[in-house]
């Protein structure tokens, strides 16, 4: 995606309609990194289960980072795990997105002040696209996060990676 950065500042009809198609493809097929960290992972699993069924949005868990589009950081990011998360994120091919799920990965959550072993927010190691609050968030809250991410992807363009949101 980087090659075309800022080459079509104004954009034209061809680019925009192609953008629409490609964005549609990307946003409706967000394959998820199959890993969970802590209690939020339980809710993430619940979101995949029958009642909430995250697959309705095209989110399929893939075991290998090479085939993933979105990483759902679900749970407490300990300092030890942070390096692994960083590595997994680096292994994901572009375009890639990150959803930070739950208080712990948003900002350290209950451990933000005295947790000597917890990373105070996963955005200190990888760029986060959507923060889903909750401790843990309801499965619906995660689904809402996915929808939010889809909105963000929809606004992207081939020429510019992200349109700055107002």
């Amino acid at each position, binding site marked *: 995606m980087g090659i075309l950065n800022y080459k079509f500042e104004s954009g034209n009809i061809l680019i925009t309609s192609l953008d629409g198609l490609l964005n549609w493809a990307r946003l409706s097929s967000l394959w998820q990194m199959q890993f969970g960290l802590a209690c939020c992972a339980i809710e993430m699993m619940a979101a995949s289960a*029958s*009642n*909430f*069924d995250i697959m*309705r949005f095209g989110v399929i868990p893939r075991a290998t980072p090479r085939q993933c589009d979105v990483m759902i950081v679900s749970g407490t990011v300990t300092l030890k795990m942070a390096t692994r998360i960083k590595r997994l994120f680096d292994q994901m091919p572009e375009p890639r997105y990150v959803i930070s799920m739950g*208080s712990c990965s*948003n*900002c*350290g*959550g*209950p451990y*933000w*002040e005295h947790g000597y072993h917890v990373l105070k*927010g996963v*955005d200190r190691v990888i760029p*986060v*696209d*959507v*923060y*889903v*609050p*909750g*401790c843990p*968030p*309801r499965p*619906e*809250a995660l*689904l*809402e*996060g996915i*929808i*939010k991410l889809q909105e*963000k992807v929809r606004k992207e363009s081939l020429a510019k990676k992200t349109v700055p*949101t107002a």
Partner: protein
Amino acid sequence: MEAVRTYFRDIWKALSSIAVGLNVTIRHLVRPAVTIQYPDVKLKMPERARNRLYVNIDDCIGCDQCALACPVDCITIETIKATPDQDLGVTSTGHKKRLHVPRFDIDIAKCCYCGLCVYPCPTECIVMTDVYEFSEFDRHNLIYQFSAMKPDQIDDAKAKLKKAEEEAAAKKAAAAAAAEEKKKSEQSKQG
């Protein structure tokens, strides 16, 4: 002989158990799905669901009880004393408000939804609502500011308090000086 019998029994067991499993899955295939299609259909939250915090700032008396109760210190409250001439009114529970609340921030990103802040509140102004869909692109948007006071109002209140304090201090100083004077004169009289 026993081995041969086990061999064939195992094969039979495998086939029959596969058939049982296939029967279960095919029956579920034709059964209607139980999925709640989230953005279109939403689950009704139970009555005591604990989700996002809400503060009715009109009722807040700035007692700081909730901030003290919070196990993760996600509530920050600053208060300014009201001067005697100001009447801040009463809360809906009948408590008299004596403090301005220029800052009432809750960092929802830190909040762990335990609900401990709700119980000590004397005016029941901090409550847990059933709103759970509020994800953000930027983490700083998750810091919710509930105070209704505008910056000039805060400055005003601060200035008033300062003035009142100065006046009080001056009065005190004057009283102290008068007392000193009195003491001195009494001493000199005695002397």
